[in-house]
């Protein structure tokens, strides 16, 4: 297997580097159509690949030695509408282009990567896809992924548990039903199959793309509920340097019984990011440190992270990216409150000296090349190691070292003028050495293919993926592996007024993680016992959506609406084995259905005032007992306002979630006032002042200091006030 693997790598690299192909060149200038001034740092990419270039200070770009043929170019820049141009590269000739970009009033026509594993415009995507641009993180003093995702409608984030359109309940993040990717490479831990939100190079994130709905047809296991792809900044000729310092406090709660100290609890964060290209060599790096004393006693967290990404362009059609990350964190082992009366303190029996320490290492290598004008390929390798341990002894000692290796080769081929094909092979090996899970090994071998047919304004996609999963201690050898097929079909049709109708149906699946199968652990009064007989959980996602850009009385408005239905089978949920003891086992419990409407409307009403209204209404039903699914809100909404005046920018957001209708009743034996829950009303606001390369922002999270729970026995974050100083040089 290893030999075959090495051979494949060598074959691919040598074929792309050494095989002589007829080549031509492409050069051009990108200008603003209204001012005729050059557009600096715009991205010029070949559709379907991430290969391309950036414009320099004169708005000029150049791609040398491209294999001859016909290509589609996507030209995008911040603040401009994306342009798509057909271009023909001829042998030994330079094609010259003059490209005009139109300034955009609203975010539309964005370029995305995640939906079909290739670069394309969002209007051609047949599924709901939300985008968050990295620049808003500084505006709102957001420094963690969980806070950033809270701004996307129909996503609920509780601790590291991410639920897209009601796909997940609450299981301390174990067995995530959304896959997290950094630049397309999965970063789920090998043991828990969970998302580590503290191990993300946040200062370098340029865009977050979220697919709402099953994505297993391209991304395999864990993409049952959706896909979250974090896209890091590509180094450009212009240097990008940013430094941010946040200093914050949690204000004292209204109620004296919730005060934990005479002083205000503090929050300190610093982060740096740097990115620049030097000829063929590019480098991006970030580092961050944060210490959060927490709004609760025994809830401190300290994180540090370093990330480095380099890329080398062998030529304009062959690129190698290498990246590495190390993060380290210490946190108190807060699980639930003592009682609602002392909601900011853990149970009196808690050993306050116990801390959880964890290290995370991530290395990735990505090789991209254009074989010919009709064939591109990408070869990705990722290594992700998580280490965790606490400081207790006996049955409460927790330790795990988990490694996940991910290798994928992907091809994009243009079969003819109408059909594009994306296909590839994927191998994943999860290896765990843990006191709490034993020594375990889990493998996936997968193959996928997806075709995209264009008929004028209609784009039809269809395809599927085979995944074979084998866990050594269950399936013995690979011949006993469990094979899943995940098909998918979708269409996107651009109608009159530039509106788009989309529809899709796809299957998702997720085998149990190693933690769900083998956990044998005691913590804070709970005991988790193993279950090696877990079946794969599955979903079928269907949706119909409509995207309509409008201009009413010179006011641009973008409306987007989806109606969706997710059928969920054999959901793996933690369940109390008896009604009266805190002994938990992960079991296949639920046949469920989540039907809903997801609506988003945004508008920049004047040059200085913009707003967005989004809501999600869903009916999450446990069909086995005809009750609402636990830990889901039926209605959630976000209302956002932005005011711009001179150098000031004021952002205000209101988020609402209806009260979760059901939680686990058995928690009453362990958690006092486990049932204390209310609708969530949260107001966040920030005021920013920009001068030169600096900005100063005063932000408040939960400005009205509203008290709520999202998880039983856990008071939500109380009011936080943060002063941020940010320096960004982009020159």
């Amino acid at each position, binding site marked *: 297997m290893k030999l075959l693997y090495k051979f494949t790598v060598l074959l691919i690299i040598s074929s792309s580097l050494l095989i002589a192909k007829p080549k031509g060149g492409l050069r051009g200038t990108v200008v603003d159509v209204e001012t005729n001034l050059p557009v600096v740092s715009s991205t010029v990419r070949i559709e379907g690949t991430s290969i391309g270039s950036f414009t320099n200070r004169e708005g000029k770009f150049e791609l040398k030695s491209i294999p001859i043929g016909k290509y589609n170019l996507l030209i995008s820049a911040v603040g401009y509408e994306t342009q798509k141009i057909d271009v023909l590269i001829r042998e030994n000739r330079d094609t010259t282009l003059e490209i005009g970009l139109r300034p955009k009033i609203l975010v539309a026509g964005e370029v995305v990567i995640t939906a079909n594993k290739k670069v394309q415009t969002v209007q051609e995507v047949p599924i709901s896809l939300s985008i968050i641009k990295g620049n808003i993180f500084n505006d709102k003093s957001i420094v963690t992924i969980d806070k950033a995702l809270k701004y996307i409608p129909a996503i609920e984030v509780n601790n590291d548990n991410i639920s897209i359109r009601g796909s997940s309940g609450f299981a301390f993040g174990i067995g995530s039903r959304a896959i997290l990717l950094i630049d397309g490479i999965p970063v789920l831990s090998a043991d828990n199959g969970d998302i580590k939100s503290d191990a993300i190079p946040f200062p370098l994130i340029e865009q977050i793309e979220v697919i709402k709905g099953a994505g297993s047809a391209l991304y395999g296991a864990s993409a049952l509920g959706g896909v979250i792809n974090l896209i890091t900044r590509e180094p450009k000729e212009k240097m990008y340097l940013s430094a941010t310092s946040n200093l914050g406090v949690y204000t004292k709660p*209204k*109620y004296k*019984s*919730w005060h934990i100290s005479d002083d205000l609890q503090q929050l300190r964060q610093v982060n740096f990011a740097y990115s620049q290209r030097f000829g063929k060599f590019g480098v991006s790096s970030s580092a961050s440190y944060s210490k959060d004393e927490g709004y609760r006693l025994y809830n401190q967290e300290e994180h540090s992270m370093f990330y480095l990404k380099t890329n080398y362009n062998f030529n304009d059609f062959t690129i190698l990216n290498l990246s590495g990350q190390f993060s380290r964190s210490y946190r108190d082992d807060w699980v639930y409150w003592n*009682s*609602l*009366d002392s*909601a900011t303190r853990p149970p009196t029996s808690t050993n306050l000296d116990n801390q959880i320490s964890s290290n995370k290492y991530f290395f990735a290598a990505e090789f991209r090349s254009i074989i010919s004008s009709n064939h591109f390929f990408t070869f990705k390798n990722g290594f992700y190691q998580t280490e965790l341990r606490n400081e207790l002894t006996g049955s409460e000692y927790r330790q795990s070292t988990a490694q996940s290796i991910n290798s994928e080769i992907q091809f994009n081929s243009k079969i003819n003028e109408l059909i594009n094909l994306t296909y590839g092979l994927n191998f994943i090996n999860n290896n765990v050495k843990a006191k709490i899970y034993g020594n375990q090994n889990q493998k996936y071998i997968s193959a996928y293919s997806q075709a995209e047919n264009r008929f004028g304004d209609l784009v039809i996609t269809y395809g599927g993926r085979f995944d074979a999963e084998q866990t050594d201690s269950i399936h013995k050898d690979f011949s006993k592996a469990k094979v899943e097929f995940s098909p998918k079909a979708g269409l996107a049709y651009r109608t009159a007024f530039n509106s788009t109708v989309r529809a899709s149906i796809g299957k998702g699946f997720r085998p149990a993680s190693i933690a769900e199968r083998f956990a044998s652990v005691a913590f804070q009064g709970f005991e988790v016992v193993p279950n090696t007989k877990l079946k794969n959980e599955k979903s079928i996602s269907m949706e119909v959506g409509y995207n309509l850009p409008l201009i009413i009385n010179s006011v641009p408005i973008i409306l987007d609406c989806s109606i969706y239905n997710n059928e969920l089978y054999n959901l793996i949920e933690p369940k109390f084995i*008896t*009604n*009266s*003891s805190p002994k938990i086992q992960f079991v296949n419990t639920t046949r469920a259905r989540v039907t809903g409407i997801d609506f988003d409307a945004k508008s920049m*009403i*004047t040059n200085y*005032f913009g*707003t967005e209204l989004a809501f999600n209404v869903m009916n999450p039903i446990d069909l086995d007992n005809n009750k609402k699914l636990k830990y889901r809100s039926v209605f959630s909404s976000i*209302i956002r*306002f932005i005011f711009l005046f001179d150098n000031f920018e004021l952002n*205000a957001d*209101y988020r609402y979630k209806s009260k979760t209708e059901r939680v686990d*009743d058995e928690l*009453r*034996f362990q958690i006092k*006032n486990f049932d*204390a*829950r*209310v*609708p969530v*009303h949260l*107001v966040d606001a920030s005021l920013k002042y920009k001068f030169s390369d600096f900005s100063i922002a005063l932000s408040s999270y939960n400005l*009205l200091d*509203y*008290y*709520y*729970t999202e998880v039983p026995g856990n*008071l939500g974050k109380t009011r936080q006030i943060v002063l941020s100083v940010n320096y960004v040089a982009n020159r």
Partner: protein
Amino acid sequence: MKKLINLILLIFLLVSCQEGLAPIEKAIIKGKITFVGALPPDSLIKDLRVVAFNNYPPRDIVSEVLTGNAIFTESLLPIKNQECNYFIEIDKFPSTIAYLVVARQYGTLFEWDVVGIYSNDTVNYVPEKIVLSKPATINIDFVVDFNKKLPQPF
């Protein structure tokens, strides 16, 4: 534009009227349990709790707690120095405690017996009712003799 600003202000006004969670005002029943006579062996005293039932006679402890008709203290084990303290918090008003007892688990999860009863009747041990109409602190002490046979409701 004016209308929009008014709408924003209205939203903020409505949101700021929401109260959210707050500490609960509670009644507390607390006291001391004194153990007299010989203690049973550890194998026959797996758990010990004070249980407040809303109804008398109750079904078994587990069912009554699960249905919200009873609440109990944290485990009082291990018993030290022949006495221990307890407290129970009640956060619903008005509330009636029809049967307040010290209960021992001697076997499986469903095997409990009553070893102390709040009663003024020292012959038939007819339970004394406690009616709580507002937050208050009530002191009730128990004397538990594991060798004395008390009327068992379950």
